[in-house]
């Protein structure tokens, strides 16, 4: 499940390299948008309930703001793993285990990971 995301990411990077003048309307950009939508949807990620991030509408303050994510998570797989099951890092966390409890599908978690990585 990690593969498609990586593939898409690699593909888009290549596309950008090949043609710096083209606007990169890549698959990755599409999944970033999709990830953002899922993150904001109350019935899906609802990340805004707890996390502030750039452009968040009325976020809660239960969790640290999502900033500088690429710098803090150079390894996207680690970021994804945290969203999949945050109880691994902290069994008492209030962050829901999105993957482990089937709150979101693998594809949705991939998309959210793409989006979080842009913050």
């Amino acid at each position, binding site marked *: 499940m990690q593969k498609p995301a990586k593939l898409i990411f690699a593909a888009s990077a290549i596309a950008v390299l090949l043609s710096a003048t083209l606007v990169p309307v890549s698959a990755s950009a599409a999944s970033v948008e999709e990830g953002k939508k899922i993150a904001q949807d109350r019935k899906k990620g*609802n990340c*805004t*309930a*707890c996390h502030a991030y750039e452009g968040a509408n*009325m*976020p*809660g*303050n*239960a969790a640290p703001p999502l900033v500088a994510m690429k710098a803090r998570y150079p390894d996207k797989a680690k970021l994804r793993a945290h969203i999949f099951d945050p*109880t691994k890092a902290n069994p*008492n966390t*209030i962050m*829901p*285990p999105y993957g482990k*409890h*089937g*709150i979101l599908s693998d594809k949705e978690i991939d998309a959210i990971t793409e989006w979080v990585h842009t913050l």
Partner: protein
Amino acid sequence: MKKLIIAIAALAIAAPTVSQASPQSDLNKMKRHFAKKFPGVKYQDYANGIYAISKSRRIEWESMEEFPPYEPGVEIGKSLFKKYKVGKCFKNGGIGIKQNYPYYDGKSGKVRTLEGDLMACLKRNGINTKNEKLQFGKGKFAAIAAYMAFTSRDKTTKVKVPKGKARRIYNKGKNFFYAKRGQLNFSCADCHVYNAGVTLRTNLLSPVLGQTTHFPVYRKKWEATGTSPLHGFGTIQRRYSGCNKMVRAKPLKPKGGKQNQSYVALEYFHTYMSNGLKINAPGVRQ
């Protein structure tokens, strides 16, 4: 959807490891936790829920209280209380007794809640609760309970937990309170102990201290579901259902005219955490 929630709830209730300290030391610990968390809050003010910890929300609330929206409903509750002869089932004619609930009844070996005793009373008095639309949790039934709580205003919550079976039921409630549950994996304590004062989106989380003093509660949200003054009322166990659903856990509904024993145990522990605080029911909430 419902089935899915049930399946997940069964999966997701992790057994917590809570210590078996005495109820009094549990309460002392809880009070110390909040004294540290909210140093400016006076202890009796915890009976006012989020309004004890938010100045701006308190102003909204005080303006709601100027014309208490629950008053017409409490009047109806009072007339139903008389009509169904509820007084004869209770000590002191049912007036000013809420502060002693829930209590452990040695004869039956069970914990009794005010609402449980009220339902038993209606049945004993030969009332056809179905035809009269008297059901746990809301409407006419909750209005009678709200009237009874109203007559107990300013009395101090005084729940007793003797050693033995009562203590075991208390511990069962305590376990329930600290256990993570539901698809979203939250315990009551996650929201109302560790994260009290935090906002989830725009919902400010209230401290567990004082959560029971103003129940049955009168909620604007429930009021908006109908046109009668009775729609706003809800019992504490109705609220438990709501908080369980919020985390996609299965709410524990009454069955066969009896409350769920896990919720009864929860109410026993939960109300003990308000010992020392004054009854101020029915409270107004959003």
